[in-house]
């Protein structure tokens, strides 16, 4: 491949570290950005070690900053990571159409526009006969209209025999589980609607709200799609189960593949279900000419009915767990971030679905400074010790300096207190779980807040949930 590229990494933390490492592996240059609050992040240290340029910017959210730095760094491509500009089609369009054009490492802006919006995705999916979650098919800005939709969803559920109907109110511009509330009592709808609308306005500067039927007792599955710039030959890298989440619906533990029919008995044909969602996902990918990596998010009910929730037109946090079980022509060591960069820069895919196989089970733990007993509220303080026992079956991704060189790290309050991603692999489910426990037992994570209270983390929660993975709760 052409290695005369420089990739501007428009992100921070763990994903910036992984993109920098992927660029290094591919033999291409890169540059990183950071803000004043983030000057202690380990992604700066990794960038220095791997020879990447560093630029201080006023904000990760400012497109002018990113593009100005990209020009200064001589970048030929911009990698948005996840969050920030990853699913912003206007940003992708600007990167690729400005006077000094660059490559956007992600799907083309037209694809992001078509699929990046939850509502467009639903429309497209329905046109292909792909089932979607019932609800509003555009952001609602009017309170009366919102209530009307909510009431119709209530009545629909009652007609379906649902004893306790539930409606979800979501910030349309939100994501990652933020800005979502359930409405149990339709008479409370207006107050919940106003609260989410105000939250959405404060956090996302857009008060649009989605109203959806809340499906209870479901598993949250994902299909990892990979395609090259031709958009004609997408392949999938299997499924993931992301059902173990915080109370605020934020993913905490992901498993690949999405079910274990050989080990666990389900009320439906789980193997056939996985085939169904992968084929539906590929069908939609082909329809839109999907041309990079992306994730199709599904809800699967206890009776095995799948509903497409949304498409994330970006690399996701949990890509590594799919890579961990993937084999290309029988070989391990798949790196989906490197694949994303390689394909984004215009390289052909070079393999077909039959070259991709899956082996064993992967578990990804999101290690976060938070208090699971108190609604997973973020913990803020200083990380003093962070270490683990290296294992051949373990991959760790972190930007916390305490783990890289022992330097204490004050968690910046501007960002989520995510500390690391740990991915373990086992030849079978039992081995993956046992290794998950062994890893968590070996983990040393210590720190204090400004009052001297010890660090709080979700490690005990992750341990507790390991045994029940891939089961319907």
């Amino acid at each position, binding site marked *: 491949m052409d290695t005369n590229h420089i990739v501007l990494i428009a992100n921070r933390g763990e994903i910036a570290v992984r993109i920098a490492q992927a660029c290094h592996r591919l033999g291409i240059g890169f540059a990183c950005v950071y803000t004043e609050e983030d000057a202690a992040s380990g992604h700066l240290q990794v960038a220095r070690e791997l020879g990447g340029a560093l630029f201080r910017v*006023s904000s990760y959210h400012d497109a002018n*900053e990113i593009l*100005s730095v990209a020009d200064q760094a001589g970048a030929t491509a911009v990698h948005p990571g996840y969050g920030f500009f990853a699913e912003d089609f206007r940003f992708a369009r600007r990167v690729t159409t400005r006077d000094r054009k660059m490559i956007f490492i992600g799907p083309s802006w037209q694809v992001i526009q078509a699929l990046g919006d939850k509502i467009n995705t639903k429309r497209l999916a329905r046109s292909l006969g792909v089932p979607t979650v019932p609800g509003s098919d555009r952001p609602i800005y009017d309170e009366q209209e919102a209530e009307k939709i909510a009431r119709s969803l209530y009545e629909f559920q009652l007609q379906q025999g649902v004893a306790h109907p539930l409606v979800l109110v979501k910030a349309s511009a939100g994501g990652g589980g933020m800005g979502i509330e359930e409405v149990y009592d339709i008479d409370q709808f207006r107050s919940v609607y106003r609260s989410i609308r*105000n939250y959405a306005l404060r956090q996302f500067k857009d008060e649009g709200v989605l109203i959806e039927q809340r499906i209870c007792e479901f598993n949250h599955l994902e299909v990892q799609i990979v395609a090259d710039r031709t958009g004609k030959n997408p392949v999938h890298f299997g499924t993931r189960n992301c059902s173990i989440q915080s109370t605020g619906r934020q993913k905490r533990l992901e498993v690949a593949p999405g079910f274990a029919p050989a080990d666990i008995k389900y009320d439906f044909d789980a193997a056939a279900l996985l085939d169904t969602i992968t084929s539906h996902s590929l069908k939609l990918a082909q329809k839109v000419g999907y041309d990079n990596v992306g994730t199709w998010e599904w809800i699967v009910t206890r009776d095995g009915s799948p509903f497409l929730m949304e498409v994330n037109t970006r690399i996701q946090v949990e890509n590594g767990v799919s890579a961990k079980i993937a084999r290309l022509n029988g070989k391990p060591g798949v790196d989906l971030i490197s694949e994303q960069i390689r394909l984004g820069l215009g390289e052909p895919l070079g393999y077909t679905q039959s070259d991709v196989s899956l082996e064993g089970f992967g578990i990804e733990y999101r290690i976060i400074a938070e208090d699971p007993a108190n609604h997973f509220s*973020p913990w803020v303080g200083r990380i003093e010790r962070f270490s683990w026992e290296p294992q051949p079956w373990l991959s760790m991704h972190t930007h916390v300096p305490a783990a890289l060189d022992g330097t204490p790290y004050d968690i910046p309050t501007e960002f989520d207190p995510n500390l690391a991603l740990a991915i373990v692999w086992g030849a079978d489910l039992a081995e993956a779980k046992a290794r998950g426990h062994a890893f968590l037992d070996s983990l040393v994570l210590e720190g204090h807040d*400004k009052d001297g209270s010890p660090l709080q983390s979700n490690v005990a929660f992750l341990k507790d949930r390991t045994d029940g993975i891939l089961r319907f709760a």
Partner: protein
Amino acid sequence: MLDITRLLEDIKASPHEEIVIRAPHTGVVAFESCRPGDMVSGVSGEWKERPGTLLATLTRERNPKPVTAMQSGELRELHTELEGKFVEAGTPLAVVRHFLSREEVISMLLKHALHLFTAPERAKYYFTPAVDIKIKTGGSRSVTVHHGMELLIMSRMKRETPVYYTGPGGIIYTVYFKHNQNVDAGAPLLGVCPESQLAVVEELVLRVQTEWKERA
């Protein structure tokens, strides 16, 4: 008891503030004609609508951004070695030696006279919708607070939690936080004036207004 005379004398003994003007964002810098030793003016006008002296222009993505003096004073340093160069956000461009204004002195002294309600954590703060409406219509001094009142929303890491006021009852005399800006833990959010302190606060304001001589 608040010793206004002593506090005022302390400020008079050191009436200047050195203000570092930094690049608000990245860009290529071009300095204007000002030179060290020149007097510059800060933002002025009833609604702060008149910008201060233009010190430099920062061009980013073909958009020129004027970098102006925010306060009046003597230009002590100007980093002209950066002329025509790309600078990162936060790069120091100039230093202004500013003589404190009457308003600034009052603000400094009020921090001694008022009950300061401080930020429990580094976060962004917003008034609750009910209080916000009152402030927008009648100003902060139209709001009376009392111990235990749900007053603010603390927003950090995309989570929002209510903040309850603790301290003596009184009116919100001063608001120290700005919309959408982070406040460090321990930094004042509000200055609350209990009714019993109103006379002291009024005296303080009057003393500064009569005794502090502004400089052009």
